[in-house]
């Protein structure tokens, strides 16, 4: 999928080459990683592919027709790293661009059992959950390049959401 998709969508400039490299890395991850053996959505696509496609839909300014900012590629890279860092017992999240240029991951089990983590600039993860009547929220700092693992509290909240 990814490298041909990149060329089709982004042409042959430096950005396209960067995206193509990212897509190839994603494909390698899909092959090598247990996380990327997970699948997402009814089509059972590998999660790296679905995140990439969600990011591509929001990678140009005004992608929503209401003045949205383009989501930079580094947000997707951080999203992929975060998903890889999580224990494999949790299902794959869905990804989507935010109008402020962040990239969100959503784990959704129902209208009142879900969490969204929005990946912002500088390794900031803004998050909000809805679990019953509780609506915890906050911000974590996450830098996979510096060796950070996924925030422990994210694992705890996902544990509450997916507790049977």
């Amino acid at each position, binding site marked *: 999928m990814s490298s041909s998709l990149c060329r089709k969508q982004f042409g042959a400039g430096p950005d396209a080459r960067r995206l193509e490299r990212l897509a190839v890395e994603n494909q390698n991850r899909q092959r090598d990683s247990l996380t990327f053996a997970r699948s997402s959505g009814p089509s059972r696509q590998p999660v790296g592919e679905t995140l990439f496609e969600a990011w591509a839909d929001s990678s140009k300014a005004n992608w*929503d027709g209401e*003045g949205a900012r383009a989501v930079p590629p580094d947000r997707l890279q951080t999203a992929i790293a975060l998903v890889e860092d999580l224990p494999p017992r949790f299902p794959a999240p869905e990804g989507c661009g935010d109008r402020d240029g962040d990239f969100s991951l959503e784990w959704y089990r129902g209208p009142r059992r879900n969490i969204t983590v929005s990946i912002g600039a500088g390794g900031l993860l803004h998050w*909000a959950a809805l679990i019953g009547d509780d609506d915890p929220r906050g911000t974590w700092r996450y830098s996979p390049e510096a060796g950070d693992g996924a925030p422990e509290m994210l694992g705890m909240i996902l544990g509450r959401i997916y507790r049977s």
Partner: protein
Amino acid sequence: MLDTAAVPDVGDEEILARFAIGKRAVRADGTLKDNELLPPPSGKLSVMRHLEATEQEIWDEGREVARLRAKELVGRIDLNAGECRRVDLQVIKAPLVADPPSKPEPQRRLANPNHADLVFPTAAAIPGTLLPKADQMAIAKALVANSFRVIPPPMDTEKKTPAI
């Protein structure tokens, strides 16, 4: 539709439509994704007032929005204005005037006297900036959790959205 010469303020009891454009806007269970209710950098999110509009006029406006974005109209959710205010959003009338004929046809917008804005609150600590992202996300989650599923457009009046 409302009379453009005398557009009233938005009352708490009014119903507001927010259109879902593109398949990514809706989850598999038919609910709207939270990030569809996150604001663009302006802090203003467009909605359409039901007041004095027929179902046909509401759906026509949804198709107009989809046409301008060259995406599919997936449906709409209906929000109560008072409920929006309860989570600290301002709801203000913002009638749209038609673009001049000099604007190229594909991007030329029709008038919509029923247009309104949901205005996200600004941060008390830093005037002119929006609330922290996690708080914006919590507002969007509360609105989605309290709304019904996305209402699909009627099939019998469906018009094909022309590509731009």
